[in-house]
């Protein structure tokens, strides 16, 4: 008796697999769909090649001055020539290592809070984060460390945006936590003070807060005290941020089941033990994505500092654009560059936020 010879499976019809099927399903599934596809495709074909040509193929990459931009395309020489200004502002060239040191410290603390051994991770990283803004301030200013003093008018560029955003959110962290607790408190007066504070700083345009910092705050201090403008704006940013973060934390507190509070009470923990050891770790876990989203908002808002005359990166760009050696109209290149820097940072953070969310999501593996 012959062995049974199965007939080999026939290949799937061309219509259902591979590129053809994908295009049928996703691009040309119906007549209106096909029309839209063709319209968008022609539009993209029309605009993408000229942009690529302008930005890459016929762009000017090398050189140091305006006259080096001889070809038709973008003049990236402009960005190159001003890159130090864009990143470090007018900070003295021989002291720039201090800014780099600060950024390295920031990165180190960030890595440490993920990679340290579990036993000391929480305590060590909290202390490191809280100390960071003040260490950064001391390094940049230099007075306390015996380095040459760099006055705050010279701080600027993209590093200032990063520093202001990071320093504000870190200092705002403990405050916002207290405001959120206050809003949940049983004590009527503490609760209403917290509500008023939070709603005030959330309801007011951030620009008017900056004006308060630069025009109104000096009036509040006793006569003769002179607080640096950057510090005043920093204070305002801390208040602004703690209002927003308090709401993020409030959401987090609400997400922790009541059983956790009751269980902590039943094993006899004190209020602060309960909050710090049981509740807070869970709150931080659930609010991590929102904390990052709030940070992205703050980071984008640091560009508003330009309006009160602080030389952050957009202000530096405008100075560069009006420089008499570079009057060739490089606005498009300049703005595209700053666009890209901000976009890359913010988009990167939102991708990171999604990854952290997945990593922290220990109870729902999906």
């Amino acid at each position, binding site marked *: 008796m012959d062995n049974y010879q199965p007939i080999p499976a026939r290949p799937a019809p061309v219509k259902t697999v591979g590129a053809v099927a994908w295009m049928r399903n996703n691009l040309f599934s119906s007549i209106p769909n096909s029309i839209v596809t063709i319209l968008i495709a022609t539009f993209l074909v029309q605009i993408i090649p000229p942009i690529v040509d302008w930005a890459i193929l016929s762009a000017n990459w090398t050189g140091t001055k305006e006259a080096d931009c001889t070809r038709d395309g973008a003049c990236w020489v402009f960005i190159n020539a001003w890159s130090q200004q864009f990143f470090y502002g007018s900070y003295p060239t021989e002291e720039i290592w201090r800014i780099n040191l600060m950024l390295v410290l920031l990165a180190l603390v960030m890595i440490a809070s993920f990679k340290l051994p579990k036993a000391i991770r929480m305590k060590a990283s909290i202390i490191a984060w809280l100390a960071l803004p003040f260490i950064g301030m001391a390094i940049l200013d230099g007075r306390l460390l015996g380095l040459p003093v760099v006055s705050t008018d010279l701080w600027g560029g993209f590093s200032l945006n990063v520093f202001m955003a990071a320093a504000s959110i870190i200092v705002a962290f403990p405050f916002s936590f207290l405001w959120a607790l206050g809003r949940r408190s049983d004590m009527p*007066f503490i609760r209403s003070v917290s509500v008023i504070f939070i709603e005030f700083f959330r309801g007011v345009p951030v620009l*008017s807060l900056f004006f308060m910092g630069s025009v109104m705050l000096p009036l509040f201090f006793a006569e003769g005290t002179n607080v640096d403008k950057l510090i005043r704006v920093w204070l305002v940013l801390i208040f602004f941020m703690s209002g927003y973060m308090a709401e993020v934390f409030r959401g987090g507190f609400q997400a922790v089941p009541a059983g956790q509070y009751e269980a902590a009470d039943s094993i006899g923990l004190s209020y602060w033990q309960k909050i710090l050891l049981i509740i807070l770790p869970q709150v931080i876990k659930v609010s991590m994505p929102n904390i990052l989203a709030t940070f992205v908002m703050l980071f984008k808002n640091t*560009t508003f500092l330009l309006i009160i005359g602080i030389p952050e990166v957009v202000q530096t760009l405008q100075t560069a654009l009006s420089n008499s050696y570079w009057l060739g109209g490089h606005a498009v290149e300049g703005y595209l560059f700053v*666009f890209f820097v901000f976009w890359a940072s913010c988009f990167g953070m939102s991708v990171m936020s999604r990854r952290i969310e997945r990593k922290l999501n220990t109870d729902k593996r999906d």
Partner: protein
Amino acid sequence: MFKQKTTEEIKASARKRVTGSSGAFYNNPQVRSIVYQILLVAGLLYFFGTIIGNTLGNMEAIGIKTGFDFLSAAAGYDVLMSLISFEATDTYGRIFVVGLLNTILVSIIGIVFATILGFVFGVAQFSQNWLIRKVAVVYVEIFRNIPLLLQVFFWYFAVLASLPGARQSLSLGEAFFLNVRGLYMPRFIGEELAWLFHTSIALAIAGIIFLRRWAKKRQELTGDQFPVLYTSLGLLLGLPLLVLILTGFPFQIEYPALKGFNYFGGISVIPELMALALALSVYTGAFIAEAVRAGIQSIPNGQTEAARSIGLRENKIMSLIIVPQAMRVIVPLLNSEYQSLVKNSTLAAAIGYPDLFNVFVGTALNQTGQAIETIFMTIVVYFVINMIISFLMNRFNNAVALVSR
């Protein structure tokens, strides 16, 4: 009588039972809570007392008189754009109103266009067409992640500033002109019988509302559908058109005309307003698109499948099943996006659009030195606008909220 005990009372009595005493008085939670609150009140009183004392002292030292008297003083400067008549001799009070109206104008334009963009791109992320999906995602991810200030500058300095001059204006049918100085549109000036036209529009809208109610009731009773959309469109266009023909077009059209170096007549939109409104709409639109996406994603797939199984067409599924349910998630998010749009409209200061913040906190503060008063008044205005938005959106939210039976 049985009295409900509070948690604190239960805890206190439990403590008494365990320890045999109510403990030292400073361990009593009620005593503690009162002490904490008294401390907070004292601290706040001291803090504000110092601030107010310092402020008054400082203002006296610089020679600024506190109070709102400056509002009735002549401003002495002109504003770029005003919805009501304004001259340099008018008061700061009038400048306040001019700025307020400009803020409201740009906010309304921004909210309308941001909502349209947001819903179009939010729904487009669920399109069957791969290319449309990708375009929508690229729009959201690009414009959400670039600071608004940069976008305002981009539209103002890069796009609108590169438009042609007045003589080479881009024109549409010799009625609309777009050039570096702004957008010029024809204006309709009503004659005697123009009120008939306005009334007919109002009648048409009332008719549509009535028609919708009637059609809904009929469908609930008989299951028959009535073509509401086409009849409504017909009513909205037909009735006013009929009135226009019968009354013999009671309008004069004022076309913008090139005189010298610029266009005059008609309605003009200054580039500052265009740039700000564009940036606000595109930026907030990206956030609203995300809100719409989140709303649609929150609807379980079973809803779509159930709708398909009873034979609804794809566009009907979206408009009848998915979006109405998604609105419950979308509306609260929309509320906060609208509020942040209004707050962000203060960026007008960066390009010189005369909104409230710019003319009042910017210029009036500089001229009078009344920092506290101007900033206070401006902040109150933004609070009130946001409260109105919140109130309206909450009413809307109640209308779309899940009715639990």
